Structure formats: structure tokens, C-alpha cells
């Protein structure tokens, strides 16, 4: 289980995240929604280790992640995508994805002696995910040449291929066509069925309400509501947060 407890982060005088608590369970899709600036991406950054919390804890299966480096957190089982796709722009799509799967690439001597086991299996896994997302044909394209939508999909594929227990997705379907949205929804359900925990930030309410098992709502740094999609749809505070400002 991924749990945040009393999580607080200040930027100067601004409390971007204010004493937040929630849980993300494996085998479930949880959505984190709220108006712009409510602190959702900051929560992601706190979990993945990009910034350090001022107070509170991030517990991954009981272990506190606060203060641990980004790469170690990733190796402990957290995988994420960013709001702006951060691909390795000079490498091919295939290389971008192999980097996610390959855990021997940082070992210099292994590679120098030609012992890196980049097996056919890893290759297969890469192609499978590309296929599931409908973009197998861009396998050998250079990442910088991709369209916006393609970049987002490749980044999603990369996060999925990176071994993980929890997947943090920051606006996975933003700007994406309905057909691809469906593929992504199916992919997320597959992740859920494989026992992964998915936490997603989204503004597309239809998508969110259709795939999520539970929804957490944030506003001005605080968690203001939590519950099933039907609960949230009727929640007065939530409506006020979105419409009342």
C-alpha cells in the first residue's frame, strides 16, 4: 500500500500541500482530482522524491520514502509520468523503452565485456506495450520527431515497462484522441488486474469517473473529499471547489 500521512510542503510562504492523508491500494485505480493549483502535481513530486516534504510521511509498504533519492524510490517500486512528456529526445522510441526495462545498463564492466543480457524477451515486452497502445510503427522513430500525442503515449509505455508496484500518472489522457483514450483505459484496467496500484491525476472527468475505483479531491493543498465516483459526483464541497471560485 502507498500511503501519505500528514504530508505538508511549503514553497516560501505558500502551503502547496497542507497536511494531506490518503491511501492508494494495489489492484485499484485511484484518481486525484481538483482545480488547477490545488497541489496534485506537488503531491506526485513529493512521492517520487523530486522534492522533499517539510512534514509528514510517504509510506510505501510501511517504509518512509521522504528523503530517499529519486532513483532509489523508482527502484523501490514507484513509476511515473510527467505532465510534460520527458522523453530522451535524441534516442529512439525503442531505446527510450528499453532503458525502462534494462536494469543492467548502468553496469559499465558488464557492458564493456558484452555480458549485458538484453534478451529477446525484453524486446518482446517493449513491442507488446507499443502494440497495445497502437503505436508499434514508431518503434524506431527518434523521440524528438514524435507528435505531442505520440510522446505522451511513449512516456506512458515507458512508465509501464519500468518495473513497479505503483504507477503515478499525471494527466495521461490530456490532448489524446478518443480511440487512444480507450486504449489507455484498457491498459490501466490491465495494470489493475495485474495487481498494480494506479494513482492518476486527470481533468477529464468522464475518463476519470469511468476507470477509477476511488477518487480523492484536493483543493488549495488540502484533501477535501474522498470516496467512490458516485459519492464524489454528488459531493457539495467538490462542486463548490470546481465551480464556486
Amino acid at each position, binding site marked *: 500500500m502507498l500511503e501519505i500521512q500528514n504530508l505538508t510542503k511549503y514553497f516560501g510562504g505558500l502551503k502547496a500541500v497542507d497536511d494531506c492523508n490518503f491511501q492508494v491500494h494495489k489492484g485499484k485505480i485511484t484518481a486525484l482530482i481538483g482545480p488547477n493549483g490545488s497541489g496534485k502535481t506537488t503531491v506526485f513530486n513529493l512521492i517520487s522524491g523530486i522534492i522533499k516534504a517539510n512534514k509528514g510521511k510517504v509510506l510505501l509498504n510501511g517504509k518512509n520514502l521522504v528523503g530517499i533519492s529519486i532513483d532509489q524510490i523508482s527502484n523501490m517500486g514507484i513509476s511515473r509520468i510527467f505532465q510534460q512528456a520527458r522523453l530522451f529526445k*535524441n*534516442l529512439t522510441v525503442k531505446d527510450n523503452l528499453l*532503458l525502462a526495462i534494462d536494469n543492467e545498463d548502468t553496469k559499465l564492466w558488464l557492458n564493456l565485456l558484452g555480458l549485458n543480457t538484453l534478451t529477446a524477451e525484453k524486446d518482446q515486452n517493449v513491442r507488446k506495450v507499443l502494440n497495445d497502445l497502437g503505436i508499434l510503427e514508431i518503434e524506431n522513430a527518434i523521440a524528438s520527431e514524435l507528435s505531442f500525442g505520440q510522446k505522451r503515449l511513449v512516456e506512458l509505455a515507458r512508465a509501464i515497462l519500468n518495473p513497479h508496484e505503483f504507477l503515478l500518472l499525471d494527466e495521461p489522457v490530456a490532448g489524446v484522441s478518443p480511440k487512444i483514450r480507450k486504449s489507455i483505459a484498457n491498459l490501466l484496467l490491465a495494470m489493475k488486474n495485474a495487481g498494480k496500484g494506479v494513482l492518476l491525476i486527470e481533468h477529464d472527468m468522464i475518463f476519470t469517473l469511468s476507470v477509477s475505483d476511488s477518487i480523492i479531491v484536493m483543493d488549495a493543498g488540502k484533501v477535501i473529499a474522498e470516496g467512490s465516483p458516485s459519492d464524489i459526483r454528488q459531493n457539495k464541497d467538490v462542486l463548490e471547489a470546481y465551480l464556486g471560485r
Partner: protein
Amino acid sequence: MIEAYFIHLLILIGIYLILGISLQLSFGYGGLLNLGHISFFGIGAYVSALLSLNGFSFIFCMIVAALVSAFFGWLLSIPTNRLKGDYLALATLGFSFVVYAVLLNWTDVTGGSFGLANIPRPHFFGITFANNFSFLILVYISVFISYLLISRICNSRFGKVIEATRDDELASKSLGKNTFKLKSLTLTISAFFAGISGSLFAAYITFIDPSSFTLTTLIPILLIVIIGGLTSLPGTILATIVVVLIPEPLRFVGFPSSILGPVQQILYALLLLAIIYYRPRGFYGKIDLE
């Protein structure tokens, strides 16, 4: 004699090629703008010269020199880990000034501005590489081995992961890669080969002083890497030949050496500026400059 002249040029090309591909690794593949790279060359030259002046066999001198340079490469990677772009460039430049100041002032060891003279030609296993032709062979064996190793590193998955770190360090970390270790290794290896190059340089010229290892000397090396094209090792070969040969015609115009030196610098500086503006991808570069 024409033959001696060509051998001389080929030796220079070989020495600068090793230096060039070492910078290609850290700058082209690693994306680390290390403006202090020439210091690794200098450290290698001085260590090798000192050891050979004390009678050690050349292979020993070269390897130790390379290891000492590599150590400084590793050392530099630690404080500069969090720096990027121009801050990294400036810090590494600062490092090179410190090294220069030490070379200039630690007169007991380095001879100060007088430098080290009468560096013996290489000898090991009972063979002395006294004449230029044999030295040429030694240089090109070193070139061959260096190129092979660096090429292997760059074309392997390790090469891909340092390229990824260059393209987006945060994303690389998010995939679980220890980017500090990667950047450290990159600088260390690149310094190692710069040290090899420095060692050969000292043994060839047989006299070194701090003025060979300044910002001015960095310009042609930077030029080589950019003209060749970032990440292109074959391009670096072509570029080294071009850069070493370009000022040579000036020799035949009859300029005295006091004119030759500055004109060569002016040529290199203008060429660097032109390449940055007109063709920043050089011959075979696959990535943009910065």
C-alpha cells in the same frame, strides 16, 4: 624531409584523436560541457613525464598517468554533480585554472614555468621507441585500443543510459538510474583517456610546460568534437585530421614562429565561431549543440 614531416603530422593526429574521442565521450555522449578537459591532458603529461624522468618503463608511466588523470576526473565529478549547462562549464573551467596555477607554482615538482625537459622517449620490454617511425606505431596502437574501448562503451547499453542522462537527467533518475554514478564514471573514463593522450604527448615533444595546457589549447579540441559532430566517433577522426592539418599551409608561407602561433589561434577561434553558427552539427553529428 617530406617523410619525417608526414610522420610528425600523423603522430599529432593520433595524439589529438585520443584526446578528441575522450571529450566526445563526456561532452557528446554525456552532455557534460567540461571546459577543464585540457587539465586531464596536462595532468597525464606531467605524471608520465615525471615517472619516465625517474626511469620507469613507459607502459608503467602511461598507465599510472591515465589512472591519476582518471582520479581527478572522478574528483571533479563530485562537487559538480548538481551543476548543469553553463554553471558546469564555469566550474570545470575554474578547476582548470586551479590545475594551471598548481603546475605553474609547485616548482619543486613541476619545474614551474620552466617545465620539464629532456623527457625520455618511451622504452619498455627492452625496446626504445627513439625514432619517430617507431613512436608512430606506438601511438597508433594506443589509438586503436582507445578507440575500440570508447566505441564499445558508447555503442553499448551503457552508452544509451549516459545519453539518456544527457537528454533528461530527471527522467533517467525516474527510471531508477543512479545518474551521479553515471556522470562520475563518464568523467573518470574520459579523463583516463585524456591522460593516455597526455602521456604520449609528453614523450613525443620531450618538453612540457604549463602553457601547453591552457584555455587556448582547449579551443582546437573543442573544435574537433564539434566539427566531427556530437556523438560521432568516426566524425571525430575526420575532424582531427582537418583540425591538425588546417594551420599547416601557414608554415609554408614563411611566417616566423612568433607570427605562426597567434595566427593559428586566430584561425581556430574563428573556425569555432563559424561552426557554432553555420553548422553546429558538424560532419556527422546526430544531436544539437546544447
